[in-house]
């Protein structure tokens, strides 16, 4: 097999290959949990071949086999993701390719290319995980990348990693101010230039816009944060915090969907009566959907979003990055009566309504005088009968509502909401399902509330004459004694939502919870200052500087100015030709400090010779080391330049030089 011909100076050394391989492995590690197992297995295989090839070079695959492996790698990605575009498929393909490149590290050029591509791998990972710990880890990886480039450039003289690391450390430190300036002032895009089809993938956990048995339970066991909220004033009671998301109208017998949501144009005010609005700020984790969660009922939408007739706050673009927004809501309200069209939509029934369901509702209708009494009758049914709340409900068959109501009688919010809404429709009361979150945990350290995915909830809104849409939460009607707390605590541990009231008398559990809150506060700070830094913050900064009239141009001009100034300062510091202190001076200063600690400080008028004489006279026991040091120091100092050997020798002497105070080493008395 003909291999490429490479000049001797450009051939890759085994140690360089090893370091490059280790760097790529280190850079791949954090992305691997997000990839399919086939891709990870392939990566691990190639890493193993590469490392074995370092030990036994003859084991390295030849060119033909490498081409074959490349095809296998691409096919493997295709098999795992069915696409090579998009975030997951793209990341898998890139990781596969850079790993395969490891098998072909013949020249220094290959090494450099691979090392530089690690930078791209780092950026790709931030699409998956933006936590502080990952960022810190990848920061170290990028330092490794720089150090490897320095090492590959060579010309440092000494062997080993130390000189390269020293250079890297200096470069990184000097680059920090410039990085900061660029980060703060570089103009951002407010909307993506292109989209690689994120929507098609369901990689993100988050509220779905349909509901069927099992859809929310998947979320409920997820302890990740969904969003954080900071209230302007005192927050309302946790039990009142219904965070409104998608509204579902249509039931096909098994699944609730938005159906033909009414397309009435949003009117300025859907609410006819309202209490004083409360204002709050939400920091929403990316969901790739357009729902912005707001408390029942939102009255003002943030910019770039609107309020639908069903009072959902919807963003104009999918939330692909952390999104911060302010909303105002009213806690008590009455909505306008909807049109006849909407009423009919909210009364539509699936075709699998069983006679016993109709019979049940007919019973209630006979007893109730008004719609509201009928609603109360329905809630009482859930409370009185042996309905259980559990996160581990038994499986339901073809007609989930019927089976749930009359047979299993165990489930959680989505079962209750679905069954209740159907029963109301049978009774002739228009109803709809609202998906969202309930409650939120106070974080006293950070001064905000965190709402987790496990707080996901579903409830019902019924249309009552004179009052409009009224929220009814059938899940809350379940007798508290029938809530299965064990399943929640088993599934969620310390992440369990507060509404399960898991016993926290256990000291360790309390400690775990407070540690979790602290970690979350750090995470929120990280989000606030780094992840969520946006054009708005930049414009706010411009505003403070009185340049807001210039907008993007002002920002660009400010950035150029700041970069030039920063570079000028760095350059000035760099081109100052002298380091802070001469090495020899530093050694002598250390020598004097050691003697001063031993009670023999140098007088200002003393030169090294006089000082040495005085020390020797006062402390004959130190004559040896002091004499030896000065015998080497004085000629070095007064000759043209100190040789490196002399410096090294002086350093070694100083290391062993530990003058004790006279008398016992424990004595606290200073002789001078």
């Amino acid at each position, binding site marked *: 097999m003909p291999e490429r011909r490479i000049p001797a100076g450009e051939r890759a050394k085994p140690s360089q290959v090893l370091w490059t391989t280790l760097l790529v492995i280190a850079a791949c590690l954090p992305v691997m949990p997000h990839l399919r197992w086939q891709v990870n297995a392939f990566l691990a295989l190639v890493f193993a071949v590469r490392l074995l090839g370092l030990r036994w070079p003859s084991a390295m695959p030849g060119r033909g086999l490498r081409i074959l492996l490349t095809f296998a790698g691409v096919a493997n990605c295709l098999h795992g993701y069915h696409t090579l575009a998009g975030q997951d498929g793209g990341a898998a393909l890139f990781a596969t390719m850079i790993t395969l490149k490891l098998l072909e590290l013949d020249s220094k050029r290959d090494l*450099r290319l691979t090392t530089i*591509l690690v*930078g*791209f791998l780092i950026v790709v990972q*931030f699409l998956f995980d933006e936590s502080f710990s990952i960022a810190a880890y990848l920061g170290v990886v990028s330092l490794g990348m720089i150090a490897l480039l320095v090492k590959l450039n060579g010309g440092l003289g000494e062997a080993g990693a130390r000189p390269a690391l020293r250079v890297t450390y200096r*470069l990184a430190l000097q*680059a920090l101010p410039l990085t900061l300036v660029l980060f703060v002032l570089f103009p951002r*895009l407010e909307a993506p230039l292109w989209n690689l089809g994120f929507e098609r993938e369901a990689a993100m956990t988050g509220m779905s816009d349909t509901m069927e048995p099992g859809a929310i339970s998947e979320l409920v066991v997820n302890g990740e944060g969904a969003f954080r909220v900071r209230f302007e004033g005192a927050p309302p009671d946790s039990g009142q915090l219904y965070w409104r998301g998608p509204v579902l109208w249509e039931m096909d017998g098994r699944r609730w969907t938005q159906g033909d949501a009414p397309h009435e144009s949003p009117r300025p005010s859907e609410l006819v009566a309202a209490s004083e609005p409360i204002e709050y700020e939400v920091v929403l984790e990316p969901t790739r959907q357009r729902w912005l969660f707001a408390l029942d009922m939102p009255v003002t939408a943030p910019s770039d979003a609107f309020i639908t007739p069903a009072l959902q706050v919807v963003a104009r673009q999918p939330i692909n990055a952390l999104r911060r927004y302010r909303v105002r809501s009213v806690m008590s309200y009455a909505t306008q009566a909807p049109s006849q069209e909407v009423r009919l939509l909210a009364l539509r029934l699936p075709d699998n309504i069983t006679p016993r369901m109709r019979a049940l509702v007919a019973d209630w209708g006979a007893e109730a005088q008004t719609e509201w009494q009928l609603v109360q009758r329905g809630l009482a049914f859930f409370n009185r009968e042996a309905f259980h709340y559990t996160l581990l409900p038994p499986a339901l068959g073809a007609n989930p509502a019927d089976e749930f109501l009359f047979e299993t009688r165990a489930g959680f919010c989505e079962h209750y909401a679905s069954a209740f809404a159907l029963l109301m429709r049978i009774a002739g009361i228009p109803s709809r399902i609202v998906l969202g979150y309930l409650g939120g945990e106070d974080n006293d350290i950070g001064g905000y509330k965190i709402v987790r995915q496990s707080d996901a909830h579903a409830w019902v809104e019924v249309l009552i004459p004179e009052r409009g849409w009224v929220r009814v939460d059938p899940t809350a009607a379940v007798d508290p004694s029938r809530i299965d707390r064990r399943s929640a605590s088993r599934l969620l541990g310390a992440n369990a939502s507060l509404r399960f009231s898991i016993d926290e008398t256990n000291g360790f559990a309390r400690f775990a919870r407070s540690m979790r809150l602290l970690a979350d506060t750090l995470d929120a700070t990280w989000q606030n200052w780094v992840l969520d830094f946006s054009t708005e913050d930049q414009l706010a900064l411009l505003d403070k500087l009185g340049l807001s009239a210039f907008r993007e141009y002002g920002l660009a001009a400010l950035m150029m100015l700041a970069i030039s100034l920063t570079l000028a300062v*760095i350059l000035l510091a760099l081109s100052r030709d002298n380091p802070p202190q001469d090495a020899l001076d530093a050694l002598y200063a250390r020598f004097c400090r050691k003697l001063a600690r031993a009670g023999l400080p140098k007088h200002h008028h003393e030169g090294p010779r006089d000082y040495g004489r005085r020390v020797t006279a006062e402390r004959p026991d130190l004559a040896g080391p002091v004499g030896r040091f000065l015998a080497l120091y004085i000629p070095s100092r007064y000759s043209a330049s100190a040789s490196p050997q002399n410096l090294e020798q002086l350093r070694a002497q100083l290391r062993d030089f530990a003058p004790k105070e006279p008398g016992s080493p424990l004595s606290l008395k200073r002789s001078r």
Partner: protein
Amino acid sequence: MPSAAAHRADRRRDGASGQGASLRGRIAGRVGRYFESMLRRVPMGSDGVARVGARQIYILPTATGMTYGAVMLVMLLGSLNYQNNLGLLSTFFLASVAIIAMHHTWLSLLGLAAQVRGGPAVFCGETATFEITLHAEGRRARYDLRARSDDKPPPSLQIAAGDQATVKLGLRTARRGQLELDKLTLETSHPMGLFRAWCYVETDATTLVYPAPAAHAPDPSHDAGDDRRPHRHRGEGAEDYLGSRGYRPGDSPRHIDWKAFARERGLLVKEYGGDEGQDVWIQWSALRAGDTETRLSLLTRQVLDATEAGLRFGLRLPDGMEPLARGASHTQRCLKRLALFSHA
């Protein structure tokens, strides 16, 4: 056969500068020279040391640097598009590091002092050497310094602050005469290899290049037709006194019979003979070859042969002569005369 190759090269060069050169070649040469003259060179100070100044340093990204830049650009676009601040942060960090590294590269050359000395004389076709002493004046250590005059990758060296290092530069020779180091480049790509900074150093250092000796040359004793006098005086010159004869131009003053001159007997020369007593005149006019360079290479061979045989010899060229003498320094003088010979 290196000398023959050198001759061929010389003839080619002569031909190119002559009438045979195409118009295109001449224009290319002129344009090249024009741009050469635009290049800033590091001037040599009065102490013979060239100190690299800020305005004489050129810097451009290397292929690695271009790759780095391209990857940065992709990273920037991707992070901007996905509104990923961490991606932007790492992109900006790596880009800042590259910008800082660029200044480090530039600073590694700034203030560097270079002194160039010519090496010992060589025959044409051999490798001439120049000795370049680089002095890291000031308190900045220098890394990955390379001195080059052609495209060969030179070894890199590092110099501690205040220290100096010497590097030898080999240069293939193709013509006799004073070889000047017309394009000494100092370069570095420290620290990351993303940028290459270089400067052209002006030097007056030369290395003498003797003509390439011909493989064979006619024996100078052989009379080549110039019959004014024999070129080889067997029996003249050394220990045993043979007698006197009239003075001829070129005779050593040491051999003039000054006593006889004082007695007004005219200028007489004492003739000596002995075991080594062979004087040889190596003469331009004794050779029939038409081409100057061929003649010079034959003469060089004759000088070397005579030196090897331990003869006393002199050299006559149209532009001057070396008197009869013997020894290494005499040989060097003769070779130098041959190296610098120019036909008026």
